[in-house]
């Protein structure tokens, strides 16, 4: 009677492929975050003349009376920025403002809650 060799390599091959899959998966799924300076969350006067960006309830970000756009990049670059959002501002609008000032090269970004804007 002819004996067949047990094929034991196949399950281990599959297992190692799955291991590779999960290794890549756990390495590839990285979180992305915007870092804010916690120590300045409430203290607007700590930095020397920080740039204050206000975000109103509609989510519109302004520097003074001007809308936040690339023409303001030079005023933000290398500066300490405080993003002052009103109480009813949605978080995604705040994140959009944080994201923009980070993109414009702000040195540090902190958060503050302003009056109803």
């Amino acid at each position: 009677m002819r004996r067949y060799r047990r094929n034991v390599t196949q399950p281990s091959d599959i297992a190692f492929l799955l291991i590779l899959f999960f290794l890549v998966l756990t390495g590839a799924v990285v979180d992305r975050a915007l870092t804010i300076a916690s120590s300045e969350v409430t203290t607007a006067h700590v930095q020397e003349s920080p740039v204050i960006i206000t975000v109103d309830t509609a989510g519109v970000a302004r520097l003074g009376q001007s809308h936040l756009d690339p023409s303001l990049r030079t005023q933000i670059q290398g500066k300490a920025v405080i993003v002052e959002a009103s109480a009813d501002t949605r978080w995604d609008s705040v994140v959009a403002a944080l994201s923009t000032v980070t993109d414009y090269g702000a040195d540090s970004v902190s958060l503050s809650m302003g009056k109803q804007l």
Partner: protein
Amino acid sequence: MRRRKPHVASAMTDIAFLLLLFFLIFSITTHRVPSDVTLAASETAEIADDHQLILAVDADGNVYTGDQIIAIADIAYVPVVSVYADEAVPFSALYPLLQHLQENGVPTVQCVVRPK
């Protein structure tokens, strides 16, 4: 006649499956954030540092650690706190948490976002 050594492939398979289980459990248990939290999108976010404490804030302003709601006052000090806040949460609901972290001397708060 010499006896043949037993095949060691089955032991390799055991190791492989143990490793597989490890990575399965690892990928399931990491980043346990409430599923109803939709992160805000950002183009400029950088890769987050290692999470020392993960806090999730849902659209109603409830603060979670893992699956449990936690009172802001009960949040202990860690140097790096990662905040997974829902995009729809009003800033007034998130601000007390940020204030508490500041009062506790937490130097770095990572606002976790999803890449745009």
